[in-house]
């Protein structure tokens, strides 16, 4: 099939799929391409679409799912035509999500150790919001549930992959007195 024809079909599929988006795997199987070929086509399509002069939407990749989204700078116009759920995220929810995202797979107890507070209700809520999910069981007594973040999480934070999360400032792993206490901890403890 002709090159531009393939790109056209992918564009049409992306339009139809809307917020569900499409993965490389789906595109390659529908068009009978290898994943590598599909990736090359997608790269070209992202470029073509995102470089248009008249551009009301662009092609993004959130967690491996390609989809069209409108531009941030135009959002006030679209607000007039659609009602949107407010869906704010509390600090507690954000904190819990961050700890899970950086440490997954992780048990509830481990999240609680880091936060220093109970997280039972919060974790249930994040599961209900499809932002985290059960990804397995830990091989320790009681077989506690291990949690990880989901495709929905990637979308909610506009991330193509977890590598795009902000870098954590790592502390030295071996925490012995002579060492870490001489290294001055420089940045300010900033709070909100």
């Amino acid at each position, binding site marked *: 099939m002709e090159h531009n024809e393939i790109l056209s079909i992918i564009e049409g599929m992306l339009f*139809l799929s809307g917020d569900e988006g499409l993965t490389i795997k789906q595109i390659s199987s529908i068009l009978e391409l290898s994943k590598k070929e599909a990736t090359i086509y997608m790269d070209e399509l992202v470029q073509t679409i995102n470089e248009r002069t008249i551009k009301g939407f662009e092609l993004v990749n959130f967690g491996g799912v390609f989809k*069209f989204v409108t531009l941030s700078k135009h959002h006030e116009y679209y607000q007039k035509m659609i009602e949107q759920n407010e869906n704010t995220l509390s600090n507690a929810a954000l904190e819990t999500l961050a700890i899970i995202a950086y440490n997954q797979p992780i048990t509830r107890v481990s999240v609680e150790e880091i936060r220093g507070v109970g997280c039972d209700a919060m974790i249930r809520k994040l599961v209900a919001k499809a932002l985290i*999910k059960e990804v397995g069981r830990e091989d320790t007594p009681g077989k506690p549930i291990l949690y990880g973040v989901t495709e929905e999480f990637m979308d909610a934070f506009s991330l193509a992959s977890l590598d795009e999360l902000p870098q954590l400032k790592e502390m030295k792993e071996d925490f012995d007195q002579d060492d870490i206490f001489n290294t001055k901890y420089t940045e300010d403890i900033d709070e909100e």
Partner: protein
Amino acid sequence: MSYEVILDDFQGPLDLLLHLIKEKEMDLETLEVSEITDQYLAYINQMDPNQLEIMSEYLVMATQLIEMKSKMLLPNEKVELEDEYKEDPREQLIRRLIEYKKYKDILEDMRESYDYRHTLYTKAPAIMDEYVVDTTNLIPDNLEVYDLIRAMQKMFQRKSLTTPLESKIARVEISIEERSDQIRQYFKRHHHQKIRFDDLFDEPTTSYFVITFLSILTLVNKREIEIEQSGNFEDIFLKERE
């Protein structure tokens, strides 16, 4: 001393401790247990005792701090450290605070991406249920509860996202009498003007089209308005009869 910050503002004892350390401009590594304990207890004293549920987590930390402080005041503090396998509680607390602060530090960045995502809109998938030709009766073997939760969440999000406000209004049923009246009002507002025929068909529903068309015919019939067209396929105009 007055405490402007209430405990509801904190995500837990570690959060409160970080706040106090910052307030006292202390370094995390050189944490002065004795001073921070006093500060911490002063805060706890401000707490509403009725909020025991909230307090319990703070109280656990308070006991640990008090224990730590008292041990440090004891002359045999050195002896305590002989046991190599037991981590110094102060070090352990510092370690926990550093670990917790790592996440605190990036929360604003994460919230920014989250808020940014809320300025990007997308559409619901086209409805194509009828095209689904599912030839097998097999149930896929890779399903998880998450799939259901996600489908449900997507649906909740879409409910408010996909209905343009104006088309909701357009679905209101309307009679020929009401529509004729609206058209009369329209002509009143556009006194002595020629109105493009198309301008009256401003809602995209079939019933609205039909009702509007019938209303125009009625009004022409009643000799309230007249139709003008300069030639075949030219624009049609309407105007009030003088």
